[in-house]
């Protein structure tokens, strides 16, 4: 199509008063008549309404429009709407362009009618100049493999895996620890129902372990990810358990007889012991133990082999090595969970120094019937029952020194702790909170129940926990110092035990994991969703979804909901069998590529290969996400970024800088 044959239609939206209240839309439409290639320019009350869309469709047919510009709201709002309208009239939807004169003009310059109108004219001019360089584009169709990888075997990952497996598709569930279950397996009770955590979780763990459509890869980590939506290749490293899973029956003889006791930092939060050959907890799935080679006597000295001697099925394999498993999957769900805030980072709370200051996870183990004290709430000495307990909310959360975000679960788990302490010890409980945020179903009611049970609530952030007594009744106690903001007084509350409701943080390696899968991390370090409100489980990378606390602090029901939601998204793509990828992609004109290799390390997705034999670089279109970094880097300008081409953007710049002050658009001439 030659330049003269291009026929542009311009539509300026009033958006009721939203735009027309500030921008002189009639004038903008009239002025736009004079822009190059414009054959029709109209204003319209609501372009997104069916009448507005039909107007476009009619004009395409009546005036033979080849390109369309709509000046209205943000393209993030209605670009799809208008593209579809163009497509219905037989136009390629990529021959459409939008000028954002609402969010970027009328709404932000409410007291500057001239300024807003001039800006609207400039933005329309930019869109018109740009659109005549648009080319028809077709989305790329990619086949979807039905297998799915779920990374992380906590409750969110288990839920996602079960949903997909139950729908009849295969799932690889990769878990770093020897057993699936995640944090939930460590808890005693869940709020607000006080269900036994293990009782509701273990059936799901068992189902996941026994499901014919689920391959469990525990004690394993993802090493490498290649490919793109529908066709990922994933390399998983299966760490050597030193136990042959085919022979082991999980009878327990080995860990019964193992002479080495190790402090269990993971499952028991340092409160209890395990053996050097161990199963993290009785309900572990899979049931097989692992040998902790760092602490095993055989691996340290070459002697012992007690486990080998007692194993009735000869399942111990000291020579076992890490194995690599290559998986081919169509979609990935990341459910890598969270890390608990390390309370040592707040030295004035004394955790790690004052022995009866406990972290929330320590308390969970303390109160758990299967825990080190068999559920007895006692002080660190293992016998004294506390008579008074302080529970501190928001430890490491809602504090700009540590984490600005609210960890979402601490209010409720603190209420749960208050209940459990009172139930088990009858102690006086003080909850120190900043704000109470029991926001989900049944939570406020639980708060009222705890209030009525007699817990004392003190509104104030704790400044210090100390053992330095100022008065006789403080001797031998931990003194919690806080300003009670409801009575406006500094208070010192002596107690026997303090529980710190530690916040939720992203995993220490979330950046690295995100990088491997093409998922960004926000300023908090949690994985970034595609849209915070409307697309919370998808990510910037097609085919990679996120669920649970890796996306942001959340409790069990929300994690389960996200796991199921991510599974639904995956099932959606599987049932479509193929997906359409946005055609916004880079391509290299190989006949003009000189092989300088400047672009080669521009791509974060490794979509650019250098073809040694031909001395040129090539973009794998399925891997390319269309950021355009290589396009801008190419010094010989032979990489084209579809829909953001050099010509399109240069024309847009020229268009945006026309003189908008007069009745006619004036192009700036350079002498």
């Amino acid at each position, binding site marked *: 199509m030659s330049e003269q044959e291009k026929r542009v239609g311009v539509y300026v939206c009033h958006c009721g008063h939203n735009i027309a209240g500030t921008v002189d839309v009639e004038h903008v439409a009239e002025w736009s008549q004079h822009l190059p290639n414009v054959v029709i320019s109209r204003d319209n009350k609501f372009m997104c309404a069916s009448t507005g869309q039909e107007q476009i469709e009619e004009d395409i047919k009546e005036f033979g429009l080849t390109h369309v510009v709509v000046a209205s709201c943000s393209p993030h709002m209605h670009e799809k709407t208008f593209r579809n309208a163009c497509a219905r009239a037989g136009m390629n939807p990529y021959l459409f362009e939008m000028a954002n004169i609402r969010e970027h003009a009328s709404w932000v310059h409410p007291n500057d009618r001239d300024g807003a109108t001039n800006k609207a004219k400039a933005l329309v001019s930019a869109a018109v100049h740009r659109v005549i360089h648009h080319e028809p584009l077709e989305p790329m169709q990619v086949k979807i493999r039905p297998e799915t990888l779920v990374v992380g075997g906590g409750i969110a990952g288990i839920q996602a895996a079960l949903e997909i497996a139950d729908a009849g598709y295969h799932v690889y569930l990769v878990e770093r620890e020897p057993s699936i279950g995640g944090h939930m397996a460590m808890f005693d009770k869940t709020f607000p129902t006080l269900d036994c955590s293990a009782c509701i979780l273990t059936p799901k763990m068992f189902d996941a372990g026994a499901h014919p459509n689920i391959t469990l890869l525990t004690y394993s980590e993802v090493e490498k990810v290649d490919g793109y939506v529908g066709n990922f290749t994933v390399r998983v490293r299966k760490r050597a358990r030193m136990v042959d899973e085919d022979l082991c029956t999980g009878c327990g003889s080995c860990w019964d007889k193992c002479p080495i006791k190790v402090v269990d930092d993971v499952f028991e939060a340092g409160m209890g012991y395990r053996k050097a050959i161990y199963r993290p907890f009785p309900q572990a799935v899979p049931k097989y133990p692992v040998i902790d080679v760092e602490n095993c006597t055989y691996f340290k000295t070459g002697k012992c082999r007690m486990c080998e001697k007692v194993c009735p099925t000869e399942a111990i394999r000291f020579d076992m090595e890490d194995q690599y498993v290559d998986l081919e999957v169509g979609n990935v769900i990341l459910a890598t969970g969270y890390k608990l805030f390390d309370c040592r980072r707040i030295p004035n709370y004394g955790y790690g120094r004052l022995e009866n200051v406990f972290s929330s996870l320590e308390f969970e183990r303390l109160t758990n019937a299967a825990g080190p004290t068999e559920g007895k709430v006692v002080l660190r000495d293992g016998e004294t029952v506390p008579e008074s307990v302080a529970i501190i909310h928001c430890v490491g959360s809602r504090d700009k020194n540590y984490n600005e975000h609210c960890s979402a679960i601490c209010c409720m788990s603190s209420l749960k702790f208050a209940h459990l302490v009172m139930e088990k010890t009858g102690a006086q409980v003080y909850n120190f909170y900043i704000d109470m945020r029991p926001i989900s179903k049944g939570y406020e009611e639980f708060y009222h129940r705890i209030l009525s049970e007699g817990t004392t609530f003190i509104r104030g952030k704790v400044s210090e926990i100390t053992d330095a007594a100022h008065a006789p009744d403080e001797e031998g106690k931990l003194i919690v110092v806080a300003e009670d903001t409801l009575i406006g007084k500094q208070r010192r509350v002596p107690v026997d035990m303090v529980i710190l409701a530690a916040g939720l943080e992203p995993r220490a390696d979330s950046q690295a994991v995100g990088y491997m899968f093409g998922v960004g991390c926000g300023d908090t370090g949690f994985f970034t969703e595609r849209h915070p409100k409307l697309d919370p489980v998808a990510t910037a990378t097609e085919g990679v979804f996120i669920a649970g606390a890796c996306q942001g602090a959340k409790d069990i029901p929300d994690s389960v909901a996200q796991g199921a939601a991510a599974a639904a998204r995956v099932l959606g793509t599987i049932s479509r069998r193929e997906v359409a990828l946005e055609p916004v992609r880079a391509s290299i004109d190989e006949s003009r590529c000189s092989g300088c*290799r400047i672009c080669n390390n521009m791509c974060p997705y490794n979509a650019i290969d250098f073809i040694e034999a031909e001395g040129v670089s090539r973009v794998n279109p399925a891997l390319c996400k269309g950021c355009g970094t290589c396009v801008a880097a190419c010094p*010989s300008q032979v990489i084209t970024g579809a829909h953001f081409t050099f010509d399109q953007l*240069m024309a847009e710049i020229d268009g945006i800088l026309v003189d908008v002050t007069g009745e006619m658009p004036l192009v700036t001439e350079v002498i």
Partner: protein
Amino acid sequence: MSEKPKLALYWASSCGGCEIAVLGLHEKILNVAEAFDIVFWPCVMDFKYADVEAMDDDSIDVCLFNGAIRNDENARLAHLLRRKSKVMVAFGSCASGGSMPGLANFTDRDAMFDWIYHKSPTTDNPDGIVPMKHTDVPEGDLELPGFWHTVKTLAQVVPVDYFLPGCPPEASSIEMAVNAILTGQLPPPGSVIGPDVTVCDECPREKHEKKIKRFYRPYEIIPDPDTCLLEQGLFCAGIATRSGCGARCPQVGMGCRGCYGPNEGVVDHGAKILTGIASVLDAQTPEEVDAILDTLPDPAGYFYRFHLPDSLLRRRARANGEKIVAPASEAAGEPA
């Protein structure tokens, strides 16, 4: 003889290397002499401007015009030869991009004259005499061509049909152009005569993924003979510069300086060298980038060595933001 196409060659603001390059055709120059009727070549034979003015418009078939346009005389001949010629070729880097004379656009006439006639340590000018546009002598009024603030390319003054870049154009490029003219196999008007790949295409050095940690001046290191110079920290504009020269500079260990100009479709040569080089700096923060760039003095000089007048900005802004208002030749008594 009148059957032969008429050829004109002219030398505006340039060093004369382009003229030598024509002679560098060696024995093939005889073919040129045989094929063309040379009607104007001031470098070689004596012509008067009046002779050219007397010619009919469009009577010259091809004009090879080298040199940038930096004064009234250059412009006068550019307009004159354009009027008389059917095909105007911007011959060499000065006519195409401004080249060395064009680097004067980093300053302006006033600053240059001030330095040259007053301040430079080698100037001995106790009376402060500067060249004037008009000088009264007993024989009458002597006129010097007006000297411009801003050097222009030929195409910024008159329409140009073809560009033949190079400082100077390689004999092979000239030969290609002459043959194209003789056989009528010319690309569409406005084209650069030459390939549309870059120097890297012809450069035999091995290229890898690049990460530049610092730059070296050529005297600082002896580069590995087989590896891309840029990868070794030596500035090389070959990544962004049109090939056609046979990668002669990089082959002997000197980075490309960019004389063949930008690749097809590029509107600002310097911007492309800049983006290519910046992209592969091994740095994340602005401070780290700055530390690397401290080893690359005078980036604008590197990027626009041959194409400053042909770049988007064309010249430096005046210090303090003041504008150059009056054209050089307007005010009487102005320095020439």
